[in-house]
């Protein structure tokens, strides 16, 4: 095991976060704050509580989850795509490192950043709408597992993409709509019957619900199914990445 290599990659990626702190921390924090102001305070004050939870509080877990997904994907896809783009990937490919070590370094750093960001946003949210977390350890587990899963997903996207436009395609065309339709701003029980069934095919619904359950103990689907879904998605991402490394897909010629 080349521990020094894992550490070097991890450290370099974390360093990149501090270097780009405006984009990687402040932007998502400001975006989320706007959601709290508009949906939580302005609109939320006119909304009825959902399952006994005040609307401003109701949207907190979903908003954190939203940033966790987006940033996890962004960090990891960017982290591995940049070296491909500027050619520095030659160094990683010529180093005595195994695919697993590369993965642990890049995805570990991306997930760490996502978790740090998630916790910061949680703090910001708390400043707007004080809340109480019912199951803090389950909450942390969801935070970490989701950050890891979507960092893996982002890593795969970063290898697949051969340009910056492609890097954006999946996050904006697929992940973003699924997130908005994933029950961040409403309970899927509020949807008409047909759309409620459609919503159950959206993996994000399970993430948001599992996470919300850890906060308030309310959910549209049981938390165990949520966790199983996230775990399943993580395994799919791992399998895809394993295949990419084995075949040298878009990494080596």
């Amino acid at each position, binding site marked *: 095991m080349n521990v*020094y290599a894992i550490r*070097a990659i991890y450290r*370099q990626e974390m360093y990149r976060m501090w270097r780009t702190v405006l984009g990687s921390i402040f932007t998502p924090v400001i975006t989320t704050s706007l959601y709290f102001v508009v949906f939580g305070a302005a609109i939320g004050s006119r909304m009825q509580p959902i399952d006994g939870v005040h609307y401003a509080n109701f949207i907190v877990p979903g908003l954190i989850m939203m940033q966790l997904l987006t940033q996890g994907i962004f960090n990891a896809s960017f982290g591995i795509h940049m070296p491909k783009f500027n050619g520095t990937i*030659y*160094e990683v490919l010529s180093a*005595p490192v195994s695919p697993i070590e590369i993965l642990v370094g890049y995805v570990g750093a991306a997930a760490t950043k996502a978790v740090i960001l998630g916790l910061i946003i949680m703090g910001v949210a708390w400043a707007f709408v004080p809340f109480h977390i019912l199951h803090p350890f389950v909450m942390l587990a969801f935070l970490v597992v989701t950050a890891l899963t979507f960092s893996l997903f982002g890593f795969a996207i970063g290898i697949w993409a051969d340009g910056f436009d492609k890097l954006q395609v999946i996050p904006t065309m697929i992940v973003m709509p699924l997130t908005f339709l994933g029950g961040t701003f409403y309970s899927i029980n509020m949807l008409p019957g047909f759309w409620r069934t459609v919503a159950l095919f959206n993996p994000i619904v399970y993430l948001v619900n599992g996470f919300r359950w850890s906060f308030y103990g309310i959910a549209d689907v049981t938390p165990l199914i949520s966790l199983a879904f996230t775990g399943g998605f993580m395994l799919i991402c791992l399998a895809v990445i394993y295949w990419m490394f084995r075949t040298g897909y878009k990494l080596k010629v």
Partner: protein
Amino acid sequence: MTQPIISISGLEKAYGNGFRALKGVDLEIRKGEIFALLGPNGAGKTTLIGIVCGTVTPTGGQVLVDGKDVIRDYRATRGRIGLVPQELSIDGFERVYSTVRFSRGLFGKPPNPDHIEKVLKDLALWDKKDNQVRMLSGGMKRRVLIAKALAHEPDILFLDEPTAGVDVELRRDMWEMIRRLREAGTTIILTTHYLEEAEDMADRVGVINKGEIVLVEDKQALMSKLGRRQLSLQLAKPLDALPEALKGWSVDLNGGGNELVFNFDSASEHADIAALLRRLGELGIDFKDLHTRESSLEDIFVDLIRAPAA
């Protein structure tokens, strides 16, 4: 003979579009030598280096580094190799010191600030260590790439066009450093377009063209085997035509009858020139100036590449 540190046999690389970049390359690199790999653009130099270093997957053949297979035993082989790529592939936002430290870690070596300091000082980069790479000149960026390649103390160093875009003084420093590395026992394989550099530096020269090794030769032997000498005489009085008596020599009358140019291949004896000069005296052909020229590696190279595949 010294034992080979790298032995390449039957190496093949075909790209997806059917292009065969390497067609069964066999090559041995000896421990501790400076080996210059020459060839025109697109000959397969970079592909060959890429396979040894692990950035390119071969489609056939085998590469052994000190007896170990570069694919099966990649950890052992790659740890000993440093690669300086042809392109200035480096993250401009990184700082010099941290990017060099990163390379050392990536290659599995424990931190060693003393070594990194030494490498940076050797490359005259120490006072730039806290600069962002993008603020450096092209020549300095290339030195940062060399520093990165040396950060893990490799005993085999690949330099792909190391002096492209580097000014004369810097180039001289760089060769000085490469000499020092060789003295310390590092094996160096380089490609270059500046053939006079290969001529200066290399112990052996390999020429690759269209994916095939055309020749591998000790540089001295190559120069004397394929080298030519040329003698030009500026005549005191122009000649109308080449005198009959000189027809036996390989000679041309140039410059409107003002210059006689004789070609000797290196196999011919030195006595030939003396005989020639005596003959000119007998013929009453006077000359006011003379100069001789030996063919450089560049001429040899051009001849080899132009010649129909032998």
